[in-house]
């Protein structure tokens, strides 16, 4: 009896959270493209470093003066080499791990803090709401990038976890405000009133009645928080305020701009283009994927399917 129950539960779970989203994605061309792009990036960050050899300097054919690196892309080095003879494709692959880690951590933390603050403020109201919204206002007012630069110069670490946490310090405020206003508009709807009248506990009302209606909003904001974190981390690395310990696309941009003088000649443009196409590709993949999220999470659309 119990085992069949469990089997039913597993089946429902697979149908709800794997088959149904997949069918939505397959039917939505934009989302499908985004999904494939994201799969590619995830594969690059996880399997990539085991497949592509570590980017060592001076592995490319010998070249003339170090500032002029005129090695066009070839089969052996698909994206060419940089100014000290390091394979650029290998750098992109090895750099993708930290970029994705930072972006993912920052996205998760930003979203969780935003949901928690917005939900509590919107649901409890009164003095708690006033205090939380005052804090949110203050956080929204403090300029973001300068704060990050100061923090980065004080903390001086490149650990993805810490950088991700740092990036979410200023990012959660906007989301918290948006969640709060969503909660306020849902709080007095009939189905919430009905749950209250039935004597349902608060956790049930919050997680079973209000949360599902916010899920698509939250998921889209998670994606935008991730996109913002990618910008933020690459920008910090580009400015050189975070220590250069591992490979990162922002570090590559910084090297192209400051060390290799990639601005001065079209012969070296591949060094400038490679990291940025990696970034733009990832952003576009995330945004395209977000087009399907509303369909996946919106309970009204789900019921129809």
């Amino acid at each position, binding site marked *: 009896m119990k085992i069949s129950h469990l089997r039913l539960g597993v089946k429902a779970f697979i149908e709800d959270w794997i088959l149904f989203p997949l069918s939505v994605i397959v039917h939505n061309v934009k989302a499908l493209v985004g999904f494939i792009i994201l799969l590619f990036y995830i594969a690059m960050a996880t399997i990539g470093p085991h497949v592509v050899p570590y980017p060592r300097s001076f592995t490319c054919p010998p070249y003339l003066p170090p500032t002029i690196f005129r090695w066009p892309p070839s089969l052996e080095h698909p994206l060419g080499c940089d100014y000290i003879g390091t394979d650029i494709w290998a750098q992109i692959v090895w750099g993708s791990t930290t970029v994705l880690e930072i972006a993912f951590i920052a996205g998760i933390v930003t979203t969780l803090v935003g949901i928690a603050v917005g939900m509590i403020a919107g649901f409890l109201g009164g003095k708690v709401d006033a205090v939380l919204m005052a804090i949110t206002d*203050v956080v929204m*007012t403090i*300029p973001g990038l300068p*704060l990050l630069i100061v923090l980065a110069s004080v903390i001086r670490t490149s650990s993805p976890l810490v950088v991700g946490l740092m990036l979410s310090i200023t990012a959660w405020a906007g989301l918290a405000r948006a969640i709060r206003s969503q909660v306020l508009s849902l709080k007095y709807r009939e189905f919430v009133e009905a749950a209250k009248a039935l004597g349902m506990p608060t956790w049930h009302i919050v997680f079973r009645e209000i949360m599902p209606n916010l899920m698509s909003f939250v998921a889209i904001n998670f994606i935008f928080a991730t996109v913002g974190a990618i910008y933020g981390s690459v920008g910090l690395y580009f400015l050189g305020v975070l220590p250069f310990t591992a490979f990162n696309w922002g570090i590559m941009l910084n090297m192209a701009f400051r060390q290799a003088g990639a601005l001065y*000649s079209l012969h070296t443009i591949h060094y400038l283009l490679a990291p940025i196409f990696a970034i733009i590709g990832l952003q576009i993949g995330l945004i395209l994927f977000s087009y399907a999220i509303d369909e996946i999470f919106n309970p009204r659309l789900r019921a129809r399917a």
Partner: protein
Amino acid sequence: MIWLGLGRYIVFRGFNALLVLFVALLISVILFADLETKELETRVYEQVQNYARGLRGLPPEEVNRRVEEYRQWLIKVYGLDQPLYIRAFKYLARALTLDFGEARQRYPAYGATADVRSILLTALGRTVLLFTTAQIIVIVIGIFLGLYAAYRSGSIFDRFLSVFALVTYSMPMYWLGMLMILLFAYELGIFPSRSWEYVPEDVKASPFSLFVWYLWHMALPLMTIILVSFGGLAWIVRNIAISTMQEDFVMVAHAKGLRSRDVLYKHVLRAISPPVVTMSAFAIIGSFFGAIISEVVFQWPGMGRLYYTALQNSDTPVVMGVTYLSIMLIVVTKFLLDIIYGFLDPRIKVSG
């Protein structure tokens, strides 16, 4: 009765704004006070070393006594004997009267003065010249194209705009800037690679040549900012406009027999103006502070680069000045927008 409500609303909002201003400033003062302390301690150490060097030849006890006296005096002068929060409050009190003190070092690109206020004004002027001009152009283009795309939603233009917005939104401004410099400055040689140079005397002679000179120098950063920003704005305007067009009053306007152009410009534009005005106001205020990375790339000596240079040299008076100005402007803008909404929307007065 209504006016009383509005008065109360304004007082409430004003109090709220002051509170936010105060707390945000306090936090940034405390944040930078740590940097400031380290900087001051280094200075005390250096000056004591210099002083001790001048005392050579005296007996060692005498030297030690004098050096210690001098050190105590320096610590008092720099205010290091007071606890952090007292220094923070003192700074706050001075900053509220727009007295930011003296910069620790000279910034030749911002006039060779140490007065932080005049450095800030110079930087602000240049950033407004570039970024605010660009932002205004972006807003005009964005609203116009967004409305047009909403009017012809589903057309090829509309689809093209979505893709364009998606691509430019994912593109860091500084990177497009680097590409533009590479292409137009170094390869084609049309525009200068440094966007800011001292104006030669013969150009200053006539206003027209000065204008052309500035336009020629600002062309690359202007094009970059506009290209990166207008797509996203147009896309947002399009989405707001499309959801407004499905509302009843627009249908009524159509049913009355108004021409669709009149419906678009007279009814839809008015209905979407509050969110669009808010967005534009914050975009313009945001443009006062430039973009740190883009200013570094274009070598444009505005607010962003000043902030960056000052942060790198831990020049706290300048850093605090910029931070203060930015927090102040955001809070004031929010307050003004709140009041404008209070006038426009009668519902707010009641709930506020």
